């Protein structure tokens, strides 16, 4: 489904570059061994900025909840209503959570608890996005 295309900035460019190579990475604070998503300029735990690095993820997660959007404010998404907005928690660190429309899962048929894996559909000729698909 068409979506607004993320605009990478200085902070997020490594994330979106990885997504374009179909890899999902997150920030990691080496000082307190802690993952962080969405990215921030500093670690929100220890406030240090110089120990943040990008690390790979397993690309696997679990659905922890969802809503079914019927009346979105986002114009580009309105044609696809109703649609799922699921929240998935990273398998190796459930504190890290992503959103997903769950491509392939019909609206309001979200299997909470199911395992999902990252996919990277093209949003524009130059930008992919990280989405999640239920593992069958």
């Amino acid at each position, binding site marked *: 489904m068409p979506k607004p295309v*993320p605009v990478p900035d200085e902070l997020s460019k490594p994330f979106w570059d990885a997504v374009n190579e179909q890899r999902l990475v997150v920030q990691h604070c080496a000082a307190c061994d802690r993952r962080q998503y969405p990215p921030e300029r500093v670690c929100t735990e220890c406030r240090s900025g110089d120990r943040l690095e990008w690390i790979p993820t397993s690309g696997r997660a679990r659905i922890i909840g969802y809503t079914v959007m019927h009346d*979105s*404010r986002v*114009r580009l998404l309105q044609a696809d209503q109703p649609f799922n907005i699921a929240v998935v928690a990273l398998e190796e660190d459930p504190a890290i959570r992503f*959103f997903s429309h769950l491509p392939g899962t019909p609206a309001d048929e979200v299997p909470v608890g199911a395992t999902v894996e990252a996919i990277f559909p093209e949003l524009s000729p130059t930008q992919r996005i990280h989405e999640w698909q239920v593992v069958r």
Partner: protein
Amino acid sequence: MATPTPVAPASVYREEVGLGIWEHRGKVAVAGMGHSPTNRRWDGKPETSMGAYAILAIRNAMEDAGVSPDQVDGLIVVRAGTTGDAWAPRPIPEDFAQTYAHTDNIEDGLTTLSVEWLLQNMPELTNVSCVMHTRSDCMSNAVVLTAQIVGDGLAKCCLVVKGWANPEGRYGHGGANALAVAPGASQWTMPFGMVSGIPGTAFGFEQYCRRYNTSHDRVAPFVVNQRRNGLLFPEGFYAQHEPYQLTVDDYLQTRWISKPMSLHDCDRPIQTAGAYLFTTAERARDMKQRPVYILGHSSQRWTNRSSIQTLDEIEASTDLMARKTYEASGLTAKDIDVFNPYDGYALFTQYYLEAFQWHGVRRGEAHDFYGDDIRVEGPHPFSSSGGNNGNGRTRFWMHTDCIQQLRGQAGARQIRLKAETAISGGPTPGGADWTVWSSSPD
């Protein structure tokens, strides 16, 4: 060039756990309150503009307290007046421009307020020396700030005002949300449709329903009762303009916005303003109304661990709110007669009820409680204001109701149980400010 009005320093907000009893407990009181009429939309006339309504609310608050304008020495203003669109790029209506002095912010009086705009247009406020803008955009934030300012001795007779504007247009459907790109913070949310408080609140509520084996339909008695209380609230929108009872069927049959959130879980934006007058406990005793004292206040700012506040985080955050609020006042749940937590969205009110454990309600029990007798006449007069859902979006009805209940002026809404202590606050489980009120300073 005058110095700009300061924004409240972070230090006035009691955010830490362990601060103990509020240092000004019982030494600050609210002595006056005032409201303007309500309207669903602005009709474009100067006299119904948000600015005009704010002036009217302030004058009504002074009148209520029996205070003359020259006695007022403090003015606290919430700047933002809309959760939706700004007035610009529309031109300033000519009538409005001719009626009111303007500041360098063209939104002032239309969709924002400022100390500068009010002082220019209220020349009778001749002795105001303490002025401040709030840190966040709710009356709950303004109330705790004003209580602290008066307690600290920075003002002795302090007005606080919040206006709401609702110009034509559908909230949040233009601007950035109409674009094909998602820059800045929106790159993480907008592509997925996680925009506004709606889908996030629906997500938290969906988690709640699974954790506690409950369902959306069990919120119906609460929302219906909110409207019932609203119809008993003459200052509110529904009592003034749509005096019909919402039914359980209405609630169950309305459309989904973001399932499991439906239309009647959302409050309706209106055009209105409200003001309170705070003073020292000493001075309040010589004023027109029976004083309502402040026993304590607290503030909460939660930082999400990741993309969204989960139910675990909602419960942790609201537990902290309750703990700090009770700690500040020295009261416990069983001491609280009137409880008015925020309801705009109806789907997060249960978190506050369960965190504060009002009438013994614990985690997962709120929907059972909603099915009990929560009418103002009954044994559990929960949210006696009717809140935003019962009166239109202002985020201040809950404070007004606490004051009226403790004064014994709530009319048909007056609870039949004793009303000597009250708690009100909001807005969200991630960030809220709470006030404890009492008919006695002790």
